[in-house]
């Protein structure tokens, strides 16, 4: 069987890809998708721990993370639509009206 550390390494690589995308990309929808990538990396770690500690509770956590991600996606995309309606742009460089 594949050892736990391999799953954790895959999870870490995906999480770091998400973090890098979050820092590097300028389109707000792509940034939002990078957040989803990070959530999924954490889900993989939770399921791997659940398997290797023989505890189903980890999978329930993943269940709740998916539910919260669904709620987050609806509200976040609604915010993006409202932003686009007001600014006519999806670039985070142009969304600086709250900057000092």
């Amino acid at each position, binding site marked *: *069987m*594949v*050892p*736990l*550390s*391999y*799953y954790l*390494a*895959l999870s*870490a*690589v*995906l*999480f*770091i890809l*998400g*973090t*890098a*995308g979050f820092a*590097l*990309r*300028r*389109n707000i*929808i792509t940034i*939002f*998708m*990078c957040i989803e*990538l990070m959530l*999924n990396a954490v*889900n*993989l770690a939770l*399921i791997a721990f*659940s*398997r*290797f500690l*023989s505890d*189903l*509770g980890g*999978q*329930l956590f*993943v*269940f709740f993370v*998916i*539910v*919260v*991600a*669904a*709620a987050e*996606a*609806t*509200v976040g995309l*609604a*915010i*993006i*639509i409202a932003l*686009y*309606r007001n600014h006519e742009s*999806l*670039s985070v*460089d142009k969304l*600086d009206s709250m900057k000092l």
Partner: protein
Amino acid sequence: MAILFYIFAAVAVIAGLNVVLQRRPVYSALWLIVVLCALAVEYLLLGAVFMAFIQIIVYAGAIMVLFVLVIMLLNAHHEEPTHGSQFAQWLGAPLVVALLVEIGVAVWSWPGAAHVNPPPLRAGPKSVGDLLFHQYVLPFEVTSALILVAILGAVVLARKES
């Protein structure tokens, strides 16, 4: 079974790279669906059957359709390269490498990372549902309130201002 892990881990990492590197948001979204499906296979390999199918149905099926719909609704095309922030260009890559090294050291030096063979875990819908509706029934009910608030919030936020 080990070969399947490596194949789908490679698929997930390559697709994840494409999510970050593609210039068009709709390509990023399609590659993210590939990541989600590859991770669902990893869940199957870990014995989490129910979670694998929830991943496909809810994540790849519902959430990503919402993303693609919004991308098409807003007509999101190529993104312009940044002119404002220099932070990402100069500090972003070193910080990512530092995070990679830190997490790598933490994962590989963890004492529980030895080769162990845990007993098989029964994680079908029956056992997951059992746990969900007995031990975790309060979080489950709170979640329904959260979803209700999210529905109302989405309607209020996306409404046309009169």
